[in-house]
């Protein structure tokens, strides 16, 4: 009897012991290269043809981001238009993780309404359900906003599809060059000429509100920095000192411009110009070239390129008086044109990697440089406002293109842009 009790106790006591036997598995990285999603054409609830294919734009946006793998339209075995009509079992068979459905309908006031819903196939959860009235001319932009919402809901990062990019296109023979400052949608479409000149245009920089561009133009014969309001085209000259006036960069609050000026002594250093007062503050004073300044997100530090150690490298300097510059990049012989990510954790640079100019990323906390791009002549990196991607120019086979690489280097793709030589790409902030 006692033996039985003891045996029972032993049996009862054992299950408690294997608690440590539970398997623990560490997941160190996500290897899936993209999220499979089905974007179902929106139902058009008005007469005749739908005025715009919202789903086509969303599909293209998501595909271009490199983070999504939209199901080809031919494989859409069914076309639900509301979350309630989504049969998750069917979509699971198609190996789709998410389904976007919706309707486009005319409103009595002449506008349209886009209603869309996002369903997670894994658990059938309705992740999004939004209705937005849209001006007939803004259907494309509204479609980008749908893409933004989907991107944010699934990836946890705000999408940047409804943003814009600025770049300089150079055309014509060597003796009859034409320079155009262009602003286009983030997908490269809808190009708008902001300013053009027979003389070089350089270094476009977006104001934090996305309404203005600062840039360098030689159209007066000498370099000068201008700020142009996009909506009106009004151009204001803000810096035309003797010598070089270059590389403007708006401060995060938009009240100041960081500049590279040579002034009378010919020594290029970094300055900060307060726009309202024209007050100029010298930030660096070094016999070497200090240029291409860029603001930290908190506006207290400037990163810049300097050849004070021989080859170009990135340095940082605090804006408080008496601060000393500190070297940031140590890997490689050439690291230039720093651009800080919106969260301040990364600095995108142009780096020489095995003889090629490529886009690199420097970790501001741990140091170390990771090469992101794989071209031969990749230049002028610029972060998307969500920090997820870096826009840059790339020369491929003698032809320039605009290219985007994800800030983790996993996804690279080109976007359509004007033919010719492309320089100085700059991604806009969010345009709300």
């Amino acid at each position, binding site marked *: 009897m006692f033996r039985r009790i003891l045996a029972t106790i032993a*049996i009862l006591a054992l299950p408690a012991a294997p608690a440590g036997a539970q398997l623990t598995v560490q*997941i160190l990285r996500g290897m899936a290269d993209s999220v499979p999603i089905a974007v179902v054409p929106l139902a058009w609830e008005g007469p005749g043809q739908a005025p715009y294919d919202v789903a086509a734009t969303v599909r293209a946006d998501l595909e271009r981001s490199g*983070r999504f793998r939209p199901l080809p339209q031919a494989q859409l075995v069914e076309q639900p238009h509301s979350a309630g009509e989504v049969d998750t079992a069917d979509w699971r068979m198609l190996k789709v993780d998410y389904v976007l459905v919706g309707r486009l309908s005319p409103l009595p006031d002449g506008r349209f309404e886009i209603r869309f819903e996002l369903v997670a196939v894994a658990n059938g959860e309705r992740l999004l359900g939004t209705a937005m009235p849209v001006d007939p001319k803004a259907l494309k932009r509204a479609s980008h906003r749908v893409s933004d919402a989907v991107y944010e809901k699934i990836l946890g*990062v705000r999408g940047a599809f409804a943003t814009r990019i600025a770049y300089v296109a150079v055309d014509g023979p060597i003796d009859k060059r034409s320079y155009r400052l262009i602003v286009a949608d983030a997908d490269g479409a809808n190009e708008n000429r902001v300013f053009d000149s027979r003389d070089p245009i350089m270094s476009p920089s977006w104001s934090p509100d996305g309404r203005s561009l600062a840039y360098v133009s030689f159209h007066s014969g000498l370099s000068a920095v201008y700020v142009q309001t996009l909506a009106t085209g009004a151009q204001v000259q803000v810096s035309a000192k003797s010598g070089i006036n270059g590389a403007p960069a708006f401060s995060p609050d938009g009240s100041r411009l960081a500049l590279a000026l040579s002034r009378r002594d010919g020594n290029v250093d970094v300055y900060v110009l307060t726009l309202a007062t024209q007050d100029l503050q010298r930030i660096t004073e070094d016999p070497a070239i200090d240029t291409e300044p860029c603001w930290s997100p908190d506006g207290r530090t400037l990163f810049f390129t300097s050849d004070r150690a021989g080859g170009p490298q990135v340095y940082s300097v605090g804006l408080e008086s008496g601060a000393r510059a500190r070297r940031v990049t140590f890997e490689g012989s050439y690291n230039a044109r720093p651009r800080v990510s919106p969260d301040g954790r990364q600095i995108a640079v142009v780096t020489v990697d095995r003889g090629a100019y490529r886009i690199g990323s420097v970790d501001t906390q741990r140091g170390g440089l990771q090469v992101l791009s794989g071209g031969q002549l990749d230049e002028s990196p610029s972060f998307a406002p969500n*920090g997820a991607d870096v826009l840059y120019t790339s020369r491929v086979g003698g032809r320039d293109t605009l290219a985007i690489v994800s800030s983790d280097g996993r996804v690279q793709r080109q976007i359509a842009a004007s033919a010719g030589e492309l320089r100085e790409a700059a991604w806009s902030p969010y345009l709300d």
Partner: protein
Amino acid sequence: MNATMRTPIAPIGWSIALHAALAAVLVFGLSLPKRTEEPIVLPIDAVVVDDAVLQAAGRRRDEQERVETARQERAAEELRREEERLQKEQERSKAEEAERIAALQKTKAETEARAKAEAAAKRKAEQAEKSKAAAEQKRAAQEKRERDSREADLQARLADEETRASAGFQSLKASYVRAIQAHVEQRWYEPPGVAQGLSCTIYVTQIPGGEVVGMRFGSCNGGAAVRQSIETAIRKASPLPPPPEPALFEREVELVFTPKESSR
């Protein structure tokens, strides 16, 4: 049985004997007094017959006849009574015999019934005993089985523990863990920028065959999108890869998502 057959003969024998005796008494009894009185005759006196004497002699004869009749009647009465008595005796004997037989029969029946009942009871008791023994045997067997099974279980667990502790098992376990890791990693789309400091634990319940039947988040510093991505990855990872050794199977698997940026 012999007793019952013999007994009725006796009263009949007695009855015949008595009747014969009575008949003899009646025949010889009447003649005997005559013979005794006849020889007393005196020759002298015989000639002289006195009338009175004659009359007296007549009276005496009447008296004798009367006595004789009464005696005969008495004897008949006695015989009748004897017959009655015998009859009664016979009847009583008969009744007694019947009673005795009945009693005997009753006793016999009772004995038989008792014997029967006793036999039945005995049979019943025997049966009960038998089934009790069988039940006891069965219970003992069951107990033994259970004990054996418990002991086997215990042994198996101990063996399992030993196996688990062995180096070969540990290396198999490591390969099982790697298999699950690769299986989930290949299905996880890591949202951009999550690598920085993410630590997210999720407990996944699987059934033999690897099908994921449940999951719940433990501590997790990731946002909704990260959780969504992890949940989606695990649902896509179902069924999980089978263990290289069945003993390695665990119902609950703890998945710890701690991506390293440098690993990309």
